């Protein structure tokens, strides 16, 4: 049993080393030695091209059912569609090794390298200066070096649609918004949502609650706080609550489930990604932020020779944001949503990015 395992490891590593050697010889840019752990070959697919994409997650890492998982979906697509070799790393829970992860990927010969989340802005800038030959991308933050691409999203546009959906579906004319951290980023969600609600019902009541102030990022991983905030809104008469609070959204869904009301998810199609089946049914729709599209398009553009130094914004026009339809709860108002979307795309409506 033990011997069997050892031999399979040995076989795997020999195969991995061979494949990597082939990849290194074949690739023009493969000057850096492939310093991946031999056993690592067992966990990742065999490399078929010289495209090696590294990705570093935000705190929370893979399995957050939201932001990070969406980024990973884009990476996986690059693996299948562009036959890229991929490696994804999660930071320590205190986030102290973000810069370290980027450099480990760079040292291991990965190019391009993607940092998921604005927390990477500072570390990406430093890493980009230290490794000028490698292209970096950062999700949710602006480009800050010649070899950094900023992948931005028009969250306010998607949130506007969520607002339209909430106001149309609300019976009490009272909805809520739970933001994780009161930062400029999350305020974009609020601004779009409020504008969307008001466009349908100008006198609608909107409760807004941020879990933590700007600079204190614990609000993205505090389901308890999310639950308390949403419970209050439901008790006060809100019947739909939209959350933009990362992991804390789970608390919002729990509160919705207890109050037998509805909630709107964020980033990923949370009706599909939330594990608890009893919570899935409360998620009327989710505001999709297609981080997967952003990540994949960036990798594709890189393969096509694109260089950094600028920002790419994914908006409604390119379906970088939108609403999910799993569960079919918003199918009946599809026309209304499509009209609102068209107005935004055509420029008839300009959605505010600040509340």
């Amino acid at each position, binding site marked *: 049993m033990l011997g069997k395992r050892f031999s399979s490891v040995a076989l795997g590593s020999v195969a991995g080393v061979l494949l990597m050697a082939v990849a290194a010889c074949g690739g023009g840019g493969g000057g850096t030695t492939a*310093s991946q752990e031999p056993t690592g070959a067992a966990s990742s697919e065999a490399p078929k091209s010289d495209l090696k994409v590294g990705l570093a997650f935000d705190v929370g890492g893979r399995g957050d059912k939201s932001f990070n998982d969406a980024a990973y979906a884009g990476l996986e697509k690059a693996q299948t569609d562009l036959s890229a070799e991929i*490696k994804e*790393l999660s930071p320590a*829970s205190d986030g102290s090794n973000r810069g370290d992860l980027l450099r480990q990927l760079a*040292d291991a010969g990965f190019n391009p390298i993607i940092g998921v989340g604005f927390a990477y802005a500072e570390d990406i800038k430093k890493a980009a200066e230290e490794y000028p030959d490698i292209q970096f991308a950062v999700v949710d933050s602006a480009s800050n070096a010649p070899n950094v691409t*900023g992948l931005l999203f028009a969250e306010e546009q998607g949130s506007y649609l969520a607002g339209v959906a909430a106001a149309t579906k609300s019976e009490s004319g009272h909805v809520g918004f739970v933001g994780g951290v009161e*930062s400029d980023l999350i305020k974009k969600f609020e601004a779009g949502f409020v504008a969307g609600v008001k466009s349908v019902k100008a006198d609608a009541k909107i409760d807004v609650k941020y879990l933590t102030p700007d*600079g*204190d990022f614990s609000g993205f991983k505090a389901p308890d706080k999310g639950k308390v905030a949403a419970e209050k809104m439901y008790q006060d008469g809100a019947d739909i609550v939209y959350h933009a609070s990362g992991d804390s959204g789970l608390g919002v869904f729990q509160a919705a489930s207890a109050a037998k009301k509805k909630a709107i998810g964020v980033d990923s199609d949370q009706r599909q990604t939330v594990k608890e089946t009893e919570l899935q049914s409360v998620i009327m729709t989710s505001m999709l932020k297609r981080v997967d599209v952003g990540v994949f398009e960036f990798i594709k553009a890189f393969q096509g020779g694109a260089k950094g130094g600028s920002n790419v914004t994914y908006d409604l026009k390119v379906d970088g944001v939108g609403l999910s339809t799993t569960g079919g709860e918003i199918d009946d108002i599809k026309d209304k949503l499509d009209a609102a979307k068209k107005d935004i795309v055509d420029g008839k409506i300009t959605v505010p990015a600040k509340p």
Partner: protein
Amino acid sequence: MPAGLNRALLTLAGAVVAVLLAIAICSVAIIVAGGEPLAALTALFDFGESARAQSNSIAVFLNRAVPLFIAGLAVAVGFRMNLFNIGVEGQYRIAAVCAAYVGSTFTAPAPIQITVIILVAALVGGLYALIPAVMKVTRGVNEVIATIMLNYIAINLSSFLVRGPFAGQRAEGELNVTTPKLPESAMFPDLNFLFEGFGMLPPTRNGGLWGFIVVAIVLGVLVWVVLERTRFGFNIKASGLNGPAALASGVNPKTMVISAMVLSGAIAGLIGLPEILGDRGAFNSNFTAGLGFLGIAVALLGRNKPVGIAIAALLFAFLDRAQGALQFAGIPPAVITIIQGAIVLLVVVANEVTGRFARRLEERRAAQQLGRNTPVEVTA
């Protein structure tokens, strides 16, 4: 064999057994998670293949150990007299934000600039620790409760300060809040020349090997001298071991509580500086949190002695460094947290077991020397 050596050897053996047991426990966890324990062990020692990756890894390892060591020292000073300063977390955060801000308000030659920043950090940390100390001696408030509560205040106060009164310029589209950038003269010179001395490439990572490690070493020696070679250190130890006896021999317990707490807080104030002066150049939202709590584990592991704390900090840093390498080997990095937790628990248990064992050996030896078969009570 002399009793002291006997005991030291036993302690060492206990620690080694604890570490080995911790690795064994983790191997089980890794197998359950579907990984290869051997691959994990290899990853722990995998510092990368290219020369640059290796020197980077070494720098990360040492850089991580420095704040852990200082945190361990801060906690240990309180532990020495049975004062549980759980407030190190809050003390270092509030000290870091204040020091980073004060440092950014003026420009002076590097030695002066850095000294002022260090003094401000120590002062703020010490003053913040003075609050629970005064509460304890005047109103008898338990310092554990007081410091835990003060942690919440400090954490929220520091995040308020960094986005409010102490906020600096932010670039367009930048979401991280930060204090104003420190002038160049505030950045602690790195020690990258050491790598060149060993014929290695200098690390690029996080500003290279942080020079603050020198301050940490000096601090460690100072704390050792104060605790082991001064009357003050003796008083601290005496108050911790037996309060009433210390009082009877003329040690004022109130003074001791206040001075030990303030000293602990002042050391805690320095925890954030290696990172700020070595790499970030400001206090911002990416500032490493949680070091104060880790310091408790490090101090426990190091048995409240500077040398032990240094070893414990290096061990923790060594394990933390492997987070990336483990993921390259396809093993979840949470394994590191399990190893760290298991080591702390097992070392505490091992200390107790070896302590009892050593006492029994001592008793037997004494009994033999007295030429009797019945054991004699000997306080070790």
